[in-house]
């Protein structure tokens, strides 16, 4: 244990002078379509991906519905007007300038980009323990590793575009079955224009032997990213899935509106971890990614389990509520979150636990940290339906305030319609303990590092839920993101 703590320490120290280190751009030939959104653009995206007719229809339906909607205003966020006609909805960095692209050849520029991000795309360089990666840049999946190893077990892990081509029946069965295109404004937009994201299918009784991960990178200017991920865990299967994301430093705001759908069948278990590090904007709040995401899992099977873990440090604005619909009897949902906002970042994040089956349970642990001029809100719903006998929920959401110009807010909603439910919610808000800081200082640890240490300790309960490699990365990020929090 002790040794671990020392490692944490040196890590914190090592990076305490680091800025956003993923802010570079890759100079690669990228085919970007004209800015703007209309039916023709959607047809063009669909054609580029060689999609079947049913999917184009799905997109057009979503688009026409989206036209009738307005941006949601209920979140505790100050979102500037977004001009949806001034965004390019498709950017492909894999298209060769000359001639048709070969499937196996990848532009060395792209390879080195992902190397630089710490995501090796060559299998022999993979992180210890083995992590299969689907690397997505802008609108297109660049490469998916370990596909062959996985397919031997019957596991499908590929980009969603490929899944549409290779496994249309699975995609057709599950796409939009958890997040309907009518779900909300951003879900409708995503359903109309989504580009790549990952598709995972774990067959009956299979435990996925390695972590699966998708790395999302925004590179091209003036574009938005609209990833779509679909994970299906069949009966008695298990998978741990990781997601990471970064973007270049730009003065413009870029839009990222994703949908993640997860279907968990009988006794299956899915762990979904996110380290979200989109460019947060500069210290004056200029630039940064708008991260408007709909993530939801449907626990259809008996005794199925879904665990969301998220570490949110990036993005100028975050609007995201990874949720669980607990319809299988005995199903369990979990949500562990650390959301850190600094400078002028805004986050409104949390979860929804919808209890429908019998003897379902859910746990929510949320740790918010606000610094600088940022606003950080937890928003969560726990709903127990009429027939959800024996439902249990425990929620705890804590907020930590660093500095006097930031805000920390909690908005839990509870809607209980069954008399056998036991639902508990606790929340606290406080500032960082001066005693703890003083103690660290007295032991010779400078202020900024002390804060980093204490914040990491505060977030430990959640960080512990992350797979090893991600936990280290997440700790690093927390420390970096806390820079300049003291005057």
């Amino acid at each position, binding site marked *: 244990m002790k040794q671990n703590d020392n490692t944490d320490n040196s890590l914190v120290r090592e990076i305490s002078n680091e800025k956003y280190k993923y802010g570079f751009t890759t100079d690669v030939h990228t085919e970007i379509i004209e800015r703007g959104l209309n039916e023709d653009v959607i047809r063009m995206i669909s054609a580029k991906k060689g999609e079947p007719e049913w999917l184009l229809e799905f997109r057009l339906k979503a688009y026409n519905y989206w036209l009738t909607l307005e941006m949601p205003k*209920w979140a*505790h966020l100050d979102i500037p007007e977004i001009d949806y006609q001034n965004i390019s909805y498709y950017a492909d960095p894999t298209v060769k300038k000359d001639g048709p692209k070969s499937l196996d050849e990848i532009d060395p520029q792209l390879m080195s980009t992902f190397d630089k991000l710490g995501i090796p795309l060559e299998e022999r360089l993979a992180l210890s323990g083995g992590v299969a990666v689907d690397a997505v840049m802008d609108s297109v999946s660049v490469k998916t590793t370990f596909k062959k190893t996985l397919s031997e077990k019957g596991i499908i892990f590929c980009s969603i575009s490929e899944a549409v081509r290779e496994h249309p029946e699975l995609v057709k069965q599950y796409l939009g079955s958890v997040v309907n295109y009518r779900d909300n404004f951003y879900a409708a937009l995503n359903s109309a224009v989504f580009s790549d994201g990952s598709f995972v299918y774990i067959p009956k009784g299979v435990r996925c032997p390695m972590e699966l991960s998708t790395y999302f990178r925004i590179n091209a200017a003036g574009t938005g990213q609209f990833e779509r991920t679909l994970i299906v865990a069949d009966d008695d299967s298990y998978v741990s899935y990781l997601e990471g994301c970064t973007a270049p430093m730009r003065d413009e705001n870029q839009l990222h509106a994703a949908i993640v759908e997860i279907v968990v069948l009988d006794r299956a278990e899915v762990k979904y971890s996110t380290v979200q590090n989109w460019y947060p904007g500069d210290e004056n709040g200029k630039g940064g990614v708008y991260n408007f995401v709909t993530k939801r899992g449907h626990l259809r099977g008996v005794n199925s389990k879904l665990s969301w873990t998220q570490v949110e440090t990036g993005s100028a604005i975050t609007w995201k509520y990874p949720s669980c619909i607990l319809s299988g009897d005995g199903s369990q949902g979990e949500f562990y979150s650390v959301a850190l906002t600094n400078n002028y970042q805004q986050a409104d994040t949390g979860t929804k636990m919808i209890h429908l089956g019998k003897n379902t349970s859910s746990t929510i642990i949320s740790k918010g940290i606000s610094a600088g001029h940022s606003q950080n809100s937890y928003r969560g719903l726990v709903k*127990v339906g*009429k027939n959800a006998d024996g439902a249990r929920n425990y929620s705890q959401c804590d*907020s930590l*305030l*660093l*500095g*006097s*110009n*930031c*805000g*920390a*807010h*909690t*908005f*839990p*909603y*509870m*809607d*209980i*319609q*069954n*008399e*056998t*439910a*036991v*639902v*508990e*919610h*606790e*929340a*606290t*808000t*406080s*500032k960082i303990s001066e005693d703890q800081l003083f103690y660290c200082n007295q032991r010779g640890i400078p202020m900024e590092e002390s804060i980093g240490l204490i914040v990491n300790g505060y977030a430990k309960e959640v960080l512990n839920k992350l797979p090893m490699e991600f936990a280290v990365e997440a700790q690093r990020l927390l420390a970096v993101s806390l820079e300049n929090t003291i005057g």
Partner: protein
Amino acid sequence: MSVSDIYIDLFRNNRQTIDAGIAPVINGCRERALQALSEYGLPNKKLEEYLHFDAEQLFAPDWGMNLGRLKMAVDYTEAFRCNVPNLSTLLYYLAGDTLVQSESAARVQLDNGVLIGSLNSMAKDYPELVEKYYAGIANMERSGIASINTMFAQDGLFVYVPDGVVVEKPVQLVSLLQSKVDMMVNRRILVVLGNGAQLKLLLCDHSIESRNALSVQVVEAYVGSGASFSYYDLEETHTANHRINELFIEQQSDSNVELKTITLHNGKTRNTIFATLAGRGASLNVDGVAITDKQQQVDNYTYIDHKVSDCTSNELYKYVLDQESLGAFAGRVLVRQDAQRTAAHQTNRNICLTRTARMFTQPQLEIYADDVKCSHGATVGQLDEKALFYMQQRGISESEARTLLMLAFVDEVIGNVKLEPLRDRLRRLVEKRFRGELGHCEGCNICK
């Protein structure tokens, strides 16, 4: 035509009747209220604060309103005895919005400049005093209820306690609804406590006839520096009685306020509290109990605004919901950037006894200052099965054990009532309520 338009029309067409005989101070605020209502309308479910209570819908029926102020025939002494044993109070009645002094209160000589009386007559006799506060604490920009109430307000109660004066006896105001037709009553209460003043105010809502009724009441309270104010609000009507009560309170430095809202019997009820901690060192306790069954509905909404540093607020609401009743609680605590060293704690605990009962709870913290200690907790659950079994093993029947546990559950609030005779009476009322013996208001010999 929207519901608020109907009332705006009614207002315009009857302006002369409404104004007749009413103090200029009250008449002078109507235009401002009209503008606010025209702009914001009546609150409905589209508003976050009214997610579970459609106030607009409650206003929609064609309620009779006694704008011409016809005298109601109510025989107070005969009709009603709402006494708290061992508690001597200054007792007043409101029939509709008309204040009537009890004989006992009439015999008491108010001294040291204390004023207790009809809002309308006080506004005529002391226009400067009333004008300083009237419609000044209620914020019509944020409340369509305050707007409509101010538009139609004609009378109610005014209490003024000058600097340093302590009113020993609690002031008790019993609101009676007695009408042969379906009726809406619009009342207004204004309480002003000078620096260091002390007052206990007990409001009892009762109804004498089982006609449909809607009572709309706005209470404004100004609590000066170092003043101390206790406010107990007991609602004990019946299922055809709906009520919308809005309390606006502003506290100056080092003042102490205790607010308790207890709903024992009702139809649909919405209680809103907007509390502003405007002076340093102010402390506020807000508690509530709601016991519901049938298709009763109780919605408590509180908004506590910590504007300045070193203030404390504590909040505890408890609900016991039976049959098909509906409970909602939303409590927002706002801690502004200057409100350092704020301590704000909020708790909401609920017991659902059936699966047709439904509870919504929504505690909310909005915090912009860093040196704070804030927390909130909310639970929905059932009676402790282990405790039930333990009691049964000791020979206590299951139903008796349940009653004891429910009493214990709400006693966390009732037991905190500082006024001992009132506390005892409330305990008795709550117990009768749980035992199903409180089908109507206690002590009233009109109800069968």
